């Protein structure tokens, strides 16, 4: 009983580690990665997780050990204070600095790939966040945005070509939003008045989630959508179909819904 | 502003005192104020949650379930009663009369013309508004609509007319300010101005909103009877306002400039339920409610209705003096 508190505090590392070990078995782990660069992001995540995990366990272990050993009921001797150790100070300053520097340099390439080395391809789609929807504008057959053959979609169901570099232009029409594609390990904040780019290459086709990752108002939770990756041929056909639908002048062409 | 800001200020200064960031001499003076501020803020919060607006009654579940239980029984029970008022009398009678204003005639301000001045205010002369036109000489009230609510039989002269009725607008004013029309009669909506108009009829049963080009005439047939005149507007010139009263039969009259009206050939020998309406009347839906003793003798109700029985070939004279309080404002 007199060591109750040290045991309680031991629960922190035990439960903390258990959560991470068990989570994948309950599907509370990463969504499927379908991007080319996602592997690097996941590796970075795992590396940092292991590094911080080891430090966490070691620190918590030390904490437990001292609480256990110097429990008030078993230790009647007066406390002795040490007035600092120069060597220790140097060690615990340099060690984290080196670690952080290592992480900073180690991830630099991944950062540059995701945020700085914009591919030299035309914009695939312009995505505008508005409270509370993602509006999409595709360049039409001419491949250029802001021309009369652009295709507009407001239903939050974005289509994109797979197996090729995709360059998105992301904007906001009102407040801060964040365009998040969990399966592509991509997340980009959008600031009103600024255009942001996002690029990636999807390895697989299929339908995946889009969410808003920046609290943008009371309807934030509504800002979800789906992104469909399909082959270039399918994508072109879909875009043409959407264009034809957008050009409908007769009732017969109205898609039956 | 001050109501909201003072407790906020006091709360903030109180918080600063607690945190020890303000000199204690200021704090001691402010303590009593802070407490008052906290209480005031709390009162505001409570008030914010409480209902301030009137949202009306909610349904009584028991009464509702009793009503619901009867819905299936409708068809069996209802046959005995006839639909429209049964025809009992014979012959025809006439009502005529005059509405006069009790008080000094109000002056109508000019319409708020804020565009197309050349057309709508020619020579800088803006036409006056028409929400209550009282003849300065006779005191007659113009544009009072008088109409029979339900007719058991209809004289040939009051049958829906096949003639087209002109509904003209000039100098950005609807020339027939209150216009009655029979259902199915074709309304020739004309624009006699050199600017475009649109005529927006916003009735409960009839809606129409179409552009009327300069100098053009567009035909429109009202589809259904309205219980009270429908407002007519022009969205382009929002000061333009008129009223259109579609009725199943022509038992209606709109009072002339001297306040006089006449409805001829009404069915005699039976109770006639007559509605009196004016756009500025204070009664519900524009009903002209008159509570003077002479009106009481006509059985004038608080919905602006009177019940009259005519003898065959009778011409009934109705003289109504309307007090100023029967109108809004």
């Amino acid at each position: 009983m007199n060591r109750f508190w040290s045991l309680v505090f031991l629960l922190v590392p035990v439960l903390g580690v258990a959560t991470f070990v068990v989570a994948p078995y309950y599907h509370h782990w990463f969504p499927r990665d379908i991007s080319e660069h996602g592997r690097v992001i996941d590796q970075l995540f795992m590396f940092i997780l292991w590094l911080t995990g080891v430090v966490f366990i070691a620190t918590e272990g030390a904490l437990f050990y001292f609480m256990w050993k110097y429990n008030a009921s078993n230790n009647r001797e007066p406390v002795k204070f040490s007035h600092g150790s120069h060597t220790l100070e140097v060690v615990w300053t340099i060690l984290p600095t080196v670690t952080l520097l290592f992480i900073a340099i180690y991830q630099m390439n991944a950062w540059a790939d995701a945020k700085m080395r914009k591919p030299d391809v035309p914009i695939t789609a312009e995505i505008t966040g508005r409270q509370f929807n993602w509006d999409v504008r595709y360049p039409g057959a001419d491949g250029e945005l802001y021309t009369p053959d652009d295709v507009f979609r407001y239903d939050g169901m974005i289509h994109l070509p797979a197996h090729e570099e995709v360059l998105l232009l992301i904007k906001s029409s009102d407040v801060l939003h964040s365009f998040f594609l969990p399966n592509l390990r991509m997340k980009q904040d959008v600031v009103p008045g600024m255009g942001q780019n996002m690029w990636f290459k999807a390895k697989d086709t299929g339908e995946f989630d889009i969410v808003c990752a920046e609290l943008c108002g009371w309807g934030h939770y509504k800002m979800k959508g789906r992104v469909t990756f399909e082959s270039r041929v399918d994508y072109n056909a879909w875009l043409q179909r959407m264009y034809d639908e957008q050009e409908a002048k007769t009732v017969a062409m109205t898609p039956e819904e | 502003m001050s109501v909201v800001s003072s407790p906020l200020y006091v709360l903030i200064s109180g918080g600063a005192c607690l945190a020890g960031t303000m000199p204690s001499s200021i704090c001691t003076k402010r303590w009593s104020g802070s407490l008052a501020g906290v209480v005031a803020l709390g009162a505001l919060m409570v008030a914010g949650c409480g209902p301030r607006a009137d949202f009306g009654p909610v349904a009584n579940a028991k009464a509702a379930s009793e009503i619901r239980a009867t819905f299936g029984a409708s068809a069996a029970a209802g046959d005995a009663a006839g639909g429209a008022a049964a025809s009992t009398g014979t012959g025809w009678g006439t009502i005529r009369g005059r509405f006069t204003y009790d008080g000094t005639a109000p002056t109508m301000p000019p319409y708020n013309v804020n565009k197309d001045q050349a057309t709508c205010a020619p020579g800088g002369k803006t036409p006056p508004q028409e929400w209550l036109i009282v003849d300065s000489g006779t005191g007659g009230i113009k544009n009072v609509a008088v109409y029979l609510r339900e007719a058991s039989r209809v004289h040939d002269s009051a049958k829906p007319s096949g003639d087209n009725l002109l509904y003209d607008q000039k100098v950005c004013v609807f020339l027939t300010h209150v216009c009655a029309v029979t259902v199915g009669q074709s309304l020739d909506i004309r624009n006699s101005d050199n600017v475009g108009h649109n005529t927006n009829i916003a009735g409960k049963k009839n809606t129409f909103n179409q552009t009327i080009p300069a100098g053009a005439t567009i035909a429109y047939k009202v589809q259904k009877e309205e219980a009270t005149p429908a407002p007519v507007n022009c969205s382009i010139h929002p000061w333009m306002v008129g009223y259109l009263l579609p009725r199943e039969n022509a038992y209606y009259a709109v009072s002339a400039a001297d306040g006089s009206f006449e409805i001829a050939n009404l069915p005699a020998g039976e109770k006639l339920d007559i509605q009196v309406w004016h756009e500025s009347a204070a009664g519900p839906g524009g009903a002209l409610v008159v509570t003077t003793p002479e009106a009481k003798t006509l059985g004038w109700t608080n919905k602006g209705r009177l019940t009259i029985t005519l003898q065959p070939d009778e011409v009934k004279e109705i003289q109504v003096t309307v007090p100023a309080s029967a109108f809004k404002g």
Partner: protein
Amino acid sequence: MMTQRFHAICWSLLAVFAAALAGCVEAESEPPKFRLNMTQVTANQLVPAHQQAIADILDAMFGTPDKPFALPETGLDLRKLKMAAGPVWSDQAGGKHGLYRRHCAHCHGISGAGDGPTAMIVNPYPRDYRPGVYKFKSTFNPNEPTDEDLHHTLMDGVPGTAMPAFSVLPPDEVAALLEYVKYLSMRGQMESLLVEFIVNNLDYDPVTEKGSPLDLVNDPDQREEVMALLADDVVAKWQAEGQVVVVPDESAIPPNDRNAAELAASVKAGNVLFYGTKANCVKCHGPTGLGDGQQDDYDIWSKADRQFMLDTDALADSIKTDTASLAELDGEAWDAANAELDAKKRALVERREVAAGLLPPRNAIPRNLRTNMFRGGRRPLDIYRRIHQGIAGTPMPAGGPAVPGAQGTLTEQEMWQIVDYIRSLPFEPASQPQERPLNSEAVVY
């Protein structure tokens, strides 16, 4: 001493928050109820007994927000309504319940009056379903929208407004919400008809608050009349037979393979119409097309509230005048005038309470045609229908015939020319650049 003060402050704060919380919790723990359109009821001076009767009849016909009901003659699918109604919860299989309150009620309100808690902070205001008037539809102006029209709005949202797309919901949930929106519209329309029925057919005195009863249980004639109103003036409007869809005349539709010169000629003709006195677009959409012309009109939803507020102000003014003139009277005349004044004062209090629950009316601002944003859809067909029938509930007038076969203002060809012009406006040099340049390039703000 400081600690004592500190404790005192803490306790008073705690007490205040507890009181505030109690106020809120008490107000919210009751299940939500349908409310009457108080503007309508008060403007028509209905007595409390009649207000209660309307609430009861609507409950009998349509049930409550937690327990919806639909008479078979309404054609509404009760299974769908039940899915959409009620409190928000999820069953163990992941089935979603209370869809309307989950997705819609915070803007559109429990009664569908467009008065939910977040209604105030969105512009335009959310739609009030109760009159059954919808702006973006394929039918003629006075007709109710088709199911497809409502479905389209649910699936695509309304660009340029706070109405999002609900395309991620499973189709059965979308269908349930659609049914519920129609249900709220029918309920609202029935409410208006009952108010009209009372005003037209029943006697009542707002001063003594007495009236001949609206009693469907004991009066089969009344019951039959009310059921006829439901069938003829509500349900029929929502059935396909009652809805006439605007179908462009095949012969006038411009072909898809027009060359640049033909298109330019059509755009030019549309431009002339836009500025001319025939179509008159320029008056509201402005000489620049920025929607900066006529801006001080209102749509029907705001107009009703605004009229109510204006009448309330007029009543307040007349009370002032009457009070002043009371001094000149004496004896019986004074008694009568004073009684009338008291009645007016009571009415004013009542009206002010109702007005306190209304959203401030906003002007109907004509669309800026240069932003390439079309709320009702950007297909030529959509824009054609907007020009052909105007936009129901708004000042936007029709260019085509009011009913099929009637006389229109514009010919089919002229309407298509305006469509071409409208669609070319965002790409005119004056509208460029459509989007501001990227921050990564040369930026000139």
